[in-house]
């Protein structure tokens, strides 16, 4: 392994040739949930991730909404997986220590046409099994959201929509798998491979890896991985970028619910949503592009997002911006997920998990495990699996800075402690990049964006990152 007990980076070694039942390609939220499910079902699992840290693709930046599926297409696989994923999230919430702040969503109608569309939204929700969706009039809407612009006419209330921690949840899924024998190999890109009729021999940037079956959860690269290893892909990814603006924590209480627009065919539209970290955000846009890596933001779009936020919530005027970011959705030619088996090659493709993967991941994993069984594979579920705990980064939760013995507060804006940083740099999920550390602790993600703490972080992370924050002066 690349990392030893001290969490620091040591010369690369190729993963040893253990026999795996299943190799999962890709440590996005889907791959993490997959590793957990297959491990709990008794399979010996390895997850290979090409980035230094997991959650480096589509899963690094999203709206962090746990969807009910109220607006998913009728009869779609997406709907089924969201419903199952939502259910399981609630079931494992306590044992894994996951956050779920559920104050509902309001699909707000801003004009007559949109108001007329609310009825269809309610009907769709009820048909999808989300029976508590109801339409509320202007008076009730104002009572619930007094800071919403008075142009809002009516809304469909979806009580079950809520927000989660988009990083701690998948970290916890994978940690649960790792605690029960799964292995994670990072900085490990799958570049090719061959199936010999019984097992796969995968080529990776860290050497060969053997496994009986392979599950492609490569997100934005799903089609490329299929093409490289199966010889063909049944879909093509066209990344769809979504930009966001995150406002200061002072804006958090301007709304209680998630403010959704009436959606159109292509996207759910621009949402104003609270985050579990105590901010209020607006986004995402939907911009098709060719690049699978370019998650850049542009000033003009960010300005437009701010204006959109102010139009909906006038009190956002003058509110400081804390962060801006963009995420890439792994969109394909079709709206629905592209999950398919290639039984002759012990291969399952889990592609095109476009815009609801955070909500559906646990359900997708269950669905894929069922497909895997249909392919004839059998394991004994773990009788007494070990537990795991998610990082607690929610503003309202028992954060570490509130507990004695945390050492010091390192990141002053997000109140991240030295104990949290040190923990994030250790163990099988040790952060090996600043991006990874941010996702595990939120360090530098607050309003000063590292003005006060970058130097201290450079010191604390010395020797841990593939790309260090700084070098010592005098190294020539």
């Amino acid at each position: 392994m690349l990392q030893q007990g001290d969490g620091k980076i040591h010369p690369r070694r190729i993963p040893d040739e253990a026999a795996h039942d299943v190799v999962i390609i890709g440590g996005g939220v889907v791959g993490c949930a997959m590793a957990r499910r297959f491990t709990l079902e008794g399979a010996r699992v390895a997850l290979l991730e090409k980035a230094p840290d997991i959650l480096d693709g589509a899963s690094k930046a999203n709206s962090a909404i746990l969807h009910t599926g109220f607006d998913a297409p009728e009869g779609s696989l997406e709907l089924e997986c969201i419903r199952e994923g939502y259910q399981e999230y609630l079931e494992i919430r306590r044992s894994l220590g996951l956050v779920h702040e559920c104050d509902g969503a309001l699909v707000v109608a801003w004009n007559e046409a949109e108001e007329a569309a609310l009825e269809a939204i309610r009907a769709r929700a009820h048909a999808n099994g989300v029976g508590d969706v109801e339409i509320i009039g202007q008076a009730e809407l104002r009572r619930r959201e007094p800071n919403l612009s008075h142009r809002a006419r009516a809304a469909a209330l979806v009580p079950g929509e809520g927000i989660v921690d988009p990083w701690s949840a998948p970290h916890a899924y994978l940690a649960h798998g790792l605690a029960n024998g799964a292995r994670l190999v990072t900085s490990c890109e799958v570049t090719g491979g061959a199936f010999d009729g019984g097992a796969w021999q995968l080529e990776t940037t860290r050497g060969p890896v053997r496994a009986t079956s392979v599950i492609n959860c490569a997100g934005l690269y799903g089609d490329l991985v299929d093409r490289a290893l199966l010889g063909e892909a049944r879909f093509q990814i066209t990344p769809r970028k979504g930009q966001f603006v995150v406002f200061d924590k002072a804006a958090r209480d301007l709304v209680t619910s998630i403010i959704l627009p009436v959606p159109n065919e292509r996207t759910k539209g621009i949402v104003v949503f609270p985050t579990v970290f105590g901010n209020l955000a607006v986004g995402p846009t939907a911009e098709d592009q060719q690049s699978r890596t370019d998650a850049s933001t542009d000033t003009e779009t960010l300005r437009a997002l701010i204006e959109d936020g102010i139009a909906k919530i006038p009190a956002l005027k003058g509110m400081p911006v804390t962060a801006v970011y963009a995420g890439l959705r792994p969109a394909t030619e079709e709206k629905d997920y592209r999950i398919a088996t290639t039984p002759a090659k012990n291969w399952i493709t889990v592609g095109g998990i476009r815009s609801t993967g955070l909500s559906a991941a646990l359900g997708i994993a269950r669905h894929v495990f069922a497909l895997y069984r249909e392919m004839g594979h059998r394991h004994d579920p773990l009788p007494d699996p070990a537990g795991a705990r998610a990082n607690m980064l929610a503003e309202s939760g028992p954060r570490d800075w509130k507990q004695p013995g945390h050492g010091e507060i390192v990141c002053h804006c997000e109140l991240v402690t030295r104990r949290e940083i040190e923990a994030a740099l250790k163990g099988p999920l040790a952060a090996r990049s600043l991006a990874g550390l941010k996702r595990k602790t939120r360090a530098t993600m607050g309003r000063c964006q590292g003005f006060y703490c970058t130097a201290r972080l450079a010191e604390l992370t010395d020797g841990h990152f593939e790309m260090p924050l700084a070098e010592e002066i005098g190294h020539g």
Partner: protein
Amino acid sequence: MADPPLTGAPRIDVAVIGGGPAGLAAATALKEAGIGRVVVLEREPQAGGIPRHCGHPPFGMREFGRILRGPVYAARLVARAERAGVEIRTLATVAGIRPGGHLLVALPEGLIDLAARRVTYATGVRETPRAARLIGGARVQGVMNTGALQSMVYLKGRRPFRRPVIIGSELVAFSAIMTCRHAGIRPVAMIEAAPRITARWPAALYPRLAGVPLLTGTRLLEIRGGPRVTGVSVAGPDGQKREIACDGVVLSGQFTPEASLARLGHLALDPGTGGPVVDQWGRCSDPSYFATGNLLRPVETAGWSWAEGRRCGRWVAEDLAGRLPAPSGALKLETSDPRLKYVMPQRIALPRSGSGMGDLQLRVTRPVRGELCALNESGILWRRKIHALPERRMLVPLADLALPGGAGTIRFEIREETA
């Protein structure tokens, strides 16, 4: 002798949030005025504030009558405060403020609720980071403010890049260059959007720019790279877009008060300064809180902030002795002129008494030549010819203004000369 616990006896008379030049000066002045228990709460491992990581002169002329480097200056301020009997608690983060001087303080040993008769709020300024400037481009490693660069170089002996561009030309951009030189970092260019540099740099400093090309009238369009910075694209005065290769970006200046406690708490904020709304004694909308130093407004020097802190300490002592008038009526000072960035203080508490700030502080948002006017409903109360530049201090002596005796609102505006 160990300091007594923060929540036990004796009762804390004044808690000072922030141990920079202003907070330390206020605390020292309070002790010198005979106040009993004065505690500075500082979240860093050492008190001293921003000068701790300004490894360069000139600091200390006003305070110590000689020129010092930042860290030496900071250490002297700390020593002077301790000698005066100030208790300094480091690694003490004020995480919340509540009405009446109640503070939520996070210590390594746990959270405490601390009560003080008065609070002096002195958390200083920071620079505006990339996100708040809405600078587009890739999310890459190697973009930081001067403050972070200085802490890396002077406090941790590290360098984050070798060939950065420096954005901005306020005085602090010059500090960024000095910091770079100290660390063997060679900036590629200094980029300023305005047609001229912002700072009034002593002519003697220009040669120190040596080797760093200054590009004025040049806008930063976006940052490129991945995972590290590989360049920036900029638009020059002619609107031509071009690329500059670099491995880092220093975003300097655009100071903003570190006023999050007020923003998340109950104190009124002034959108102009970005700091709390204060009266002539620095008293906030909750009269148990007094603000001082650079928190009041962006941005002044350490010496200036220190002097403000000293005065504020004396006013808090007066208040504790019952010598400041209760904040009943007030004259509001405001501006809606887009050419004026702020006016501070934002209110004059009535009745006025002898002490308090002697001057109003104002700044412009762009170069203007014209007349600065103070008006109320009955017309122009005061006017003065000005020729002002952004980020330069403008002072209006309160004594010059024929302020009406009662409450009301005074507006400031600029009547520009038409060329």
